[in-house]
């Protein structure tokens, strides 16, 4: 979807300020390439980088602006360099029942039975577009079109940790319990986020994920 709109040329990206320290760069399909390139350059004025859906937010350190180096980096990013494939994670999921209360409704809406819905969800290989919403929450792209579903009209006050969910064109996993507006189809016991680990998030942007039913 939209791969051809990215282009291989070095057109300077569009950017907009979010306050004095946030610089939002429109990156289209090349978000992770921009992210990787900026990380590797280690520019001192960048305090943090937040990849998202077709854009990258640069958070600049207090009192700094866009240096000539940063400007040059943004206009000369190697957007046509192939990204190396991320690690593949197999995540065991208990589908339906108490673990996945929204599965029957979503399956019906998609015009299939629950087993077919599960088959479609497990047959696809997903890639982590970005992490957001909660620490370690992966926005997984690659959800078959038939499974796309608008978010719930009213969010749940509490979604269990490990819930596997559908939100729009994405599937995702809630690392911690809390409020949530996505449809819950199953649950995993895998720890997606542990601040005590050297790499606190199990998944990184660019990693690949397969769901395995249990």
């Amino acid at each position: 979807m939209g791969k051809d709109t990215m282009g291989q040329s070095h057109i300077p990206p569009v950017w907009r300020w979010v306050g004095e320290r946030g610089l939002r760069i429109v990156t289209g399909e090349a978000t992770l390439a921009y992210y990787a390139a900026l990380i590797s350059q280690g520019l001192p004025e960048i305090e943090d980088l937040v990849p998202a859906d077709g854009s990258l937010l640069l958070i600049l350190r207090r009192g700094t602006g866009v240096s000539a180096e940063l400007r040059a980096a943004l206009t000369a990013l190697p957007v046509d360099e192939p990204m190396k494939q991320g690690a593949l994670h197999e995540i065991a999921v208990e589908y339906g029942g108490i673990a996945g209360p929204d599965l029957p409704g979503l399956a019906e809406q998609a015009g299939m039975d629950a087993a077919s819905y599960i088959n479609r969800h497990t047959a696809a290989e997903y890639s982590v577009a970005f992490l957001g919403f909660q620490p370690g929450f992966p926005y997984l792209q690659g959800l078959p079109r038939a499974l796309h579903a608008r978010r719930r009209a009213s969010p749940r006050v509490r979604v269990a940790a490990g819930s596997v969910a559908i939100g729009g064109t994405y599937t995702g996993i809630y690392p911690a319990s809390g409020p949530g507006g996505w449809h819950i189809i199953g649950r995993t016991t895998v720890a997606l986020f542990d601040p005590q680990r050297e790499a606190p998030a199990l998944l990184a942007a660019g990693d690949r994920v397969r769901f395995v039913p249990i």
Partner: protein
Amino acid sequence: MIEVLRAGLCDLVMDLGWPGWGALGVPAGGAGDPAALAAANALVGNNEMAAGLEVTLLGPLLRFPLGGVVALTGAPFAATRSSGAALAWNQTLVLAAGETLSLERAETGCRCWLAVRGGLAVPPVMGSRSTFLPAGFGGHLGRALQGGDVLPCGTPAGAVRLLRARTPSNAQAAPLRVVAGPQLGQFDDAGLAAFFAGTYRVNAASDRRGLRLRGPAVTHAQSALPSQGVLPGAVQVPPDGQPIILGWDGPVTGGYPVIAAIISADLPRLAQLRAGDAVRFVTMELERARALAEAAWEIEELA
């Protein structure tokens, strides 16, 4: 060492947070007014990175079995010391062994910061001692203090100096100054007029993740948006038109249009807003916002 005899409403161990983990979905967190915490640390001779306590609205009763050197900055609270000695904000205080410090309630504003000489020595998580309540990690056991807790303090270095801090000028009643947000164009004229002319009230459902406002609906021309990176001070408007100012523990990405962003110089004011307070907005050019350096605290010897 500090013993918590009675916990306040939400006493959190805080330092300056952990910027740099945004790609994992972790916001920078840390004290709601980093300069105020840093000033309190300076008053007790700590490094500005030391952890202190962030106290919200109703404070704790703390006992210092070995005594200690502390300082308070931020919102003035009704407060007492068991010794009966004077309890002033913005200056070095020396507590005797066994003395208790009671922070009752905020007289104005919402939050104050307590620094302790040596710093609160809770184990750092991801490079910070701040508490991150939304995911329950960091600080003291990932939660607000409870009665019976005991907080370890670090070993201080150097001589104690009696200091006083001058707070930067504070215009808490003035409108919050904002710069235009990246999706300003997704709002219609009526929505923009409501936002920039209206008076909003802080809703009780507000916390460190965000200040929820109630007031004239900010109507969208287009409310759909792919998830984008956001940061504290960004003002999001969900489909119901009621703005949310993202806080220090807010999500790193959001799917609602950002109409405006609070300027850096006014971010500390967000920490002092409480439920029911009135909020208005006034727009400012980005270059002017940049020129307003974040208000500086001055530290001087106590005469």
